[in-house]
């Protein structure tokens, strides 16, 4: 199992979801992606992305304007 720590704090358009998608491409089922961002949209966007791709949203955190999303890759064929 590999953990991908993605620091997407301070990103402008196209935003942290781009970094998530790029990490996902490299990952395998069972790997963990931890995405950090300062864009509050990262939480609803990540939830939507997990729901639509059928990857597992493990959890989200927020601390003083910094957000962390943990995703487990499960949907790759």
């Amino acid at each position, binding site marked *: 199992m590999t953990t991908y720590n993605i620091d*997407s704090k*301070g*990103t*402008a*358009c*196209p*935003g942290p*979801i*781009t*970094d998530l*998608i*790029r990490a*996902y*491409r490299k990952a395998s089922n069972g790997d963990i992606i931890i995405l950090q961002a300062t*864009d509050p*949209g990262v939480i609803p*966007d990540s939830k*939507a*992305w997990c729901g*639509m*791709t*059928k990857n597992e949203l493990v959890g989200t955190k927020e601390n003083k304007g910094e957000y962390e999303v943990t995703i487990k890759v499960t*949907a*790759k*064929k």
Partner: protein
Amino acid sequence: MIKIAMIGGGAGGLITSSKLSAELSEEIKQEKVSITIFDKRETQEFQPGYLEAAFRGTKPEKLKRPVDRLISKGIKVVHANCESLDLDNHQIITEKNQEKYDFDYVIVSTGCSPDYSQIPGLKEANMDFYTDADVSSRIFSSLQTIKSGRIVVGIAGLPYKCPPSPNEAAFMVDEYLRRHDLRTSVDVTFITPYTRLYTAEPINEVIEPLYSERNIDSRTVFNTDYVDPAKKEIISLEGDSVKYDYLFLTPPHKPADFLKGTDFADDEGWVKVDKRDLHITDHDYAFAIGDTNNIPTSKAGVEAHLEGIVVANNLTMNVTGEGAKHFFTGRTQCSMETGFHHATFVVGTYDRPVERIKPSVTNYAEKKVMEEIYWASLHGHYEWLFKYHFKKDYFAESPS
């Protein structure tokens, strides 16, 4: 003599070097400073015009200019690409005869290009509007033969340059088909790995209704894994598939080959820089601008322009000891044509989210004005217009 090396003679390299040559004209005359561009290309192309070549039939020759006509006064050119860049020893080795050039300051502006190796089967099946003007025009040749079937456009992988361009392709191909009374017999499908048609929600809000109105089918969260040219299918990482008859997808892009494996680039070869002053991490005499760096914003011409202005100002300050340091604001200004003489813009900065701008004829006119002044802007002309347009986003006076 202080030697400034500019690796890459595209838009970013030309704008930055023209600004430097203007600000340091006296020093160049007195041979206290030299500026040298390293790029093997003899012509430069207007990349935003590739969509016009692909979907409107603009002749490729209209998008090209000889590089020698675009170089500002006092700038030397070495018509060779960089083979390796040794930042610690301040040296460039070129592909041509392994010639070595020393520098005091270096700016990397080598752009990015399609990387078909990431998606098996894509190169055989696809026609793109990113490689160059001639390749883009092949799409138009293909379009002229299409009478029925399914055209698939969209994003095959990340990152790529000009974020709105896949959406523009959808709108422009729809417009072409409608103008030629083919829209009811040719389907258009747009695929994207994002959860929305455009990743920034404010822009998605204004274009999503257009997709519905114009019957452009879409598949979101489609992560292209490979293409099967025999079956004419695109397969996703999750095992889903989309059938096509004609494929005009946006491929993932890569940086210049010589950057991969260096200690100043990430594992994919994108140069690591400070997102505000663009200096290459740990090297305050080295900078990287435009598509080649890893800053968290769009890969597009306007960003290269604004980054180049910041770097030129700061490098001039280093040489002369005068002036104040400038910082890049992260400003994006990507135009998205939505068909039928309408366009919107993706506008935001590091500190401001993307704005909701409805497509309009006025925006389309603004986009056309920018196209008209492009070649002159490479010499630094019309910079007053950019300053007026971008206002406080043109540069920042502090990093935060």
